């Protein structure tokens, strides 16, 4: 039980996917301009990564390994993710247009979000079983959401006029991310 909690907390906070592993940076830096978009993307990511981790885990254990074709994992995983995203998009469009309107446009982004593929690959590397894969994916995605929401809230405060000219735009966002990263390093070394 403790180990499972540790996996979730570790994925979310101790080795934060964005601030520590640098996965998902592109959308992290881009989408955090808007608070609402960030929250929406975050939830979409949680949804997709958790399911993708589960599916990837099953495929790896029951298809790739038995047939000795582990080297296909990258292709298989990315196709799974792309397919999953398509399915989720279609599902949402049909069943819940409201949610689709707020979340849907972010779904294609998630396909190329390094975080999804990165988590699937890390799970394999760590040798997690199915349950651990799901929890790890979930934890990672929660960490992504926390990070992007926090960065978005910080960016709301920043007024371009106050900044020296060369810092406007990307640099101040990167510096903000650096400071957030420093704060998150406090979680390093936690053990239960």
């Amino acid at each position, binding site marked *: 039980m403790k180990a499972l909690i540790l996996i979730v907390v570790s994925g979310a906070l101790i080795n934060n996917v964005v601030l520590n592993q640098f*996965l998902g940076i592109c959308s992290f830096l881009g989408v955090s301009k808007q608070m609402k978009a960030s929250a929406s993307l975050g939830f979409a990511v949680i949804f997709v990564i958790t399911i993708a981790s589960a599916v990837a885990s099953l495929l790896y254990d029951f298809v790739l390994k038995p047939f000795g074709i582990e080297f296909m994992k*990258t292709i298989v995983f*990315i196709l799974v993710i792309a397919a999953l995203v398509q399915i989720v998009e279609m599902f949402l469009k049909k069943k819940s247009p409201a949610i689709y309107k707020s979340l849907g446009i972010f779904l294609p982004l998630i396909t190329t979000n*390094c975080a999804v593929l990165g988590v699937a690959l890390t799970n394999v590397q760590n040798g997690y079983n199915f349950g651990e894969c799901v929890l790890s994916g979930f934890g990672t995605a929660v960490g992504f959401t926390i990070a992007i929401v926090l960065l978005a809230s910080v960016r709301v405060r920043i007024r371009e006029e106050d900044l020296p000219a060369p810092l406007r*735009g990307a640099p101040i966002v*990167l510096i903000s991310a*650096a*400071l957030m990263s420093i704060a998150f*390093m406090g979680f390093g070394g936690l053990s239960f």
Partner: protein
Amino acid sequence: MNKYVERLYNGLVRENPTLVLMLGMCPTLAVSTRALNGIGMGLSTTAVLILSNLVISLLRKAIPDEIRLPSYIVIVASLVTVTELLIEAYLPSVYEALGIYIPLIVVNCIILGRAEAYANKNTPLLSVMDGIGMGLGFTVALTLAGLVREILGNGTAFGLRVLPESIEPMGIFVQPPGAFLVIALFIIIMNAIGIKTRQRKLVEGCDGCCANCAVTGCPKSEEVTK
């Protein structure tokens, strides 16, 4: 300038993927802890980029528009896997250093971005040159960042001791915060000396629609570069 050479110049300087287009941030931040890592990652990506641009350009008339994206992904993923296997077999130390970031080349915005923005619209040879230019630009940027971080954070450059033993290096630069700070510094310098970066895309987010690289082909994206 010869249009082939122009591609090289474009990728290296004018539209440097990392510093100007701001693509491929993930590997840039993650891998640039040492200059040698930068070279390793950069060259691996360049290899994949050249091949993928070539293949996609050759097939550009053959792939139907609707399955454009998934096809590119499969092609790139296959190329990456090939590259990964080759590195693992013949360059094990590089493989160790780069870890999972090799397979992540698949989702490196640069590759899919160039496929979408250039390779599927241009001739194979030009696409290859574009691939070389972009790849080299990425490599140079990555190596530079790696060099700075290595010197400040470890006192070495390319593995050789540069700072005297008595000066204590600042460990933060080989850690995540340092990555953000160094890249921020590069962009600040470029801003200060007047080179315009395509930040607006990355930072403004296009109203939240395609805040990522040019994968989804947001029409607005092309305007900003000009």
